[in-house]
């Protein structure tokens, strides 16, 4: 494994009962790369990204994140999760905590930071996602876009090496998508390693280093966006792009 590779998947397979959800996935992601995973629904995009931090367990093959290979060892898995930050489709903010407490949660309970120190780090990141003035509100008092920005800030508090985005804009009203994409753009520019499952093809075109196209549990194409959008290698990708870009 080269020093630059931070995510490496080797012949990863997963089944849900008899359903073959992931089939022989090979993928290597270099430090600082932005990867967009796309494909029709049910193609295994979310399953794949959730396997990376072991929210789903794969059955065969190897997944190595920042030189730690996923195994049954709970300590290793917790270490991997500290190296990765995840942003979910439905934000999954803790509704019983204020915005600030949401963002200091990991710092206090995982890293054992003092409240004062944690608040400082969290405030800094909340300002970065332009939501510093709402820190005493509860998630339920914010709009969807604001909640997702808090969720991104929360994931960033752990200073992850890799950010995983699982359809971060799919549950948002159209007018709020841009504010979340804007944050993702600035992260990508700052050199964060990002793996995004998203249908935002505009974002993919502009910022992805490579696009991973999935279909029925397999990766069928990995190409840079200029190639993928202009001349997709497979017929399936062409159909997919036609459908998604048509509307």
């Amino acid at each position, binding site marked *: 494994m080269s020093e630059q590779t931070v995510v490496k998947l080797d012949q990863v397979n997963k089944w849900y009962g008899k359903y073959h959800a992931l089939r022989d996935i090979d993928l290597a992601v270099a430090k600082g790369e932005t990867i967009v995973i796309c494909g029709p629904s049910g193609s295994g995009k979310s399953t794949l990204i959730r396997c990376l931090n072991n929210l789903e367990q794969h059955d065969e093959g190897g997944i190595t994140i920042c030189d730690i290979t996923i195994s049954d060892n709970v300590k290793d898995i917790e270490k991997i999760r500290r190296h990765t930050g995840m942003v979910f489709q439905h934000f*999954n903010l803790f509704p019983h905590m204020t915005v600030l407490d949401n963002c200091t949660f990991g710092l206090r309970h995982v890293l054992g930071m003092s409240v004062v120190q944690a608040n400082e780090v969290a405030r800094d990141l909340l300002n970065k996602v332009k939501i510093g003035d709402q820190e005493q509100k509860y998630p339920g008092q914010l709009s969807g876009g604001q909640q997702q920005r808090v969720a991104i800030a929360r994931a960033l508090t*752990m200073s992850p090496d890799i950010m995983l985005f699982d359809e971060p804009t799919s549950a948002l009203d159209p007018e709020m998508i841009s504010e979340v994409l804007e944050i993702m753009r600035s992260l990508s520019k700052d050199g964060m390693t990002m793996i995004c499952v998203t249908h935002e093809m505009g974002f993919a075109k502009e910022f992805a280093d490579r696009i991973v196209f999935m279909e029925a549990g397999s990766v069928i194409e990995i190409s840079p966006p200029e190639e993928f959008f202009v001349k997709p290698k497979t017929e399936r990708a062409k159909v997919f792009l036609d459908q998604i870009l048509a509307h």
Partner: protein
Amino acid sequence: MNHQASIEKITGKPIEARAKKSIPLSFSRVVVWIKRNLFNTWLDSLVTLAIIALLCLLLPKALDWLFFSATFSGTSRADCTPGAACWIPIRQYMDYYIYGPFPESEQWRVNSAFAVGLFAFPLLFSQRIPQKWIVVYILVLPVVLWLLLKGGFIFEDISTSALGGLTLTFFLGIIAMCLSLPVAILLALGRRSQLPILRWACTGYIEIIRSVPVITFLFMASLVLQLFLPSGVSIDVLFRVLFVLIFVSAVYKAEIIRGAIQAVPKGQIEASYAMGCGYWKTMAYVVMPQALRNSVPALITNFIGLFKETTLVMILGLLEVMGAINATFHNAEWLGLHAEGPIVISAFFFIACFSIAQYGAHLERRIKRTKH
């Protein structure tokens, strides 16, 4: 501002936020309310009139029996007015109802135990006190009560037979309430555990215990247990009773909490795990706070039930407040007064349980404020 301006362009006048007009309460509004709510249809009118008639018939009689013709002061049965309540024995035995046969020189311990217990109200109702302290208080309270009322450490031992009346009810009720909740949380988590043996053990325990009446366990605790213990070994009856109360009521609470845990979205746990948080911290800081908030109404009902169940220890010869009151009315002097005892007992339990319910309502209001 821009938005405001565009609205102005369309409507020609500024639209500003203003307070809702308040309508003063007037006689005519009251009449309208009565018409609408009590005499809306002929059936409504009939029911209203029937209830008013019933109240007119019963209420004066009841009030007369309870207060106006009742005897409050006096020394013996001869002072009682026939056909009305006689509150003399209640007043005479009040000390006994509260302290039971607790040694008089040590009654300060009972008083301080009540004080420590009632301190729960300012503590639980206050907004400013951190939840950590409340958890500590709930876990320390049973120990303090045991030391004060039963003895141990620097306190002189009090024999179990000296505990009675309100003191005993309070002692059993509070300790059982405080300790059954943590047991219930562990049982609920155990039943949802990934480890099969733990899960089966918790499920089996819950299913068996909740299928058998509490009173049976109390009997078993008093009689059957002695059969299995080696001779000469005996466990204090108070300990056995508490054990039964805690571990039986924990089963019902465990099922309430399990339901509430299942209602916490899976994404909450995933979000916590994704940050590298382990199982116990995720449960303690993410899942349980939400699950407990959602189960407040059901848990409060359970606490009230548990508090009232303490009266069952009567069958083991422990004279808690109900037993103590009943005992005085079996005294030859006061024999034949049937209604006074139950009325006083009801009044006492109503005050205690209604306070618990009020705390529940307060919690719900507070939770509502953070939910949107």
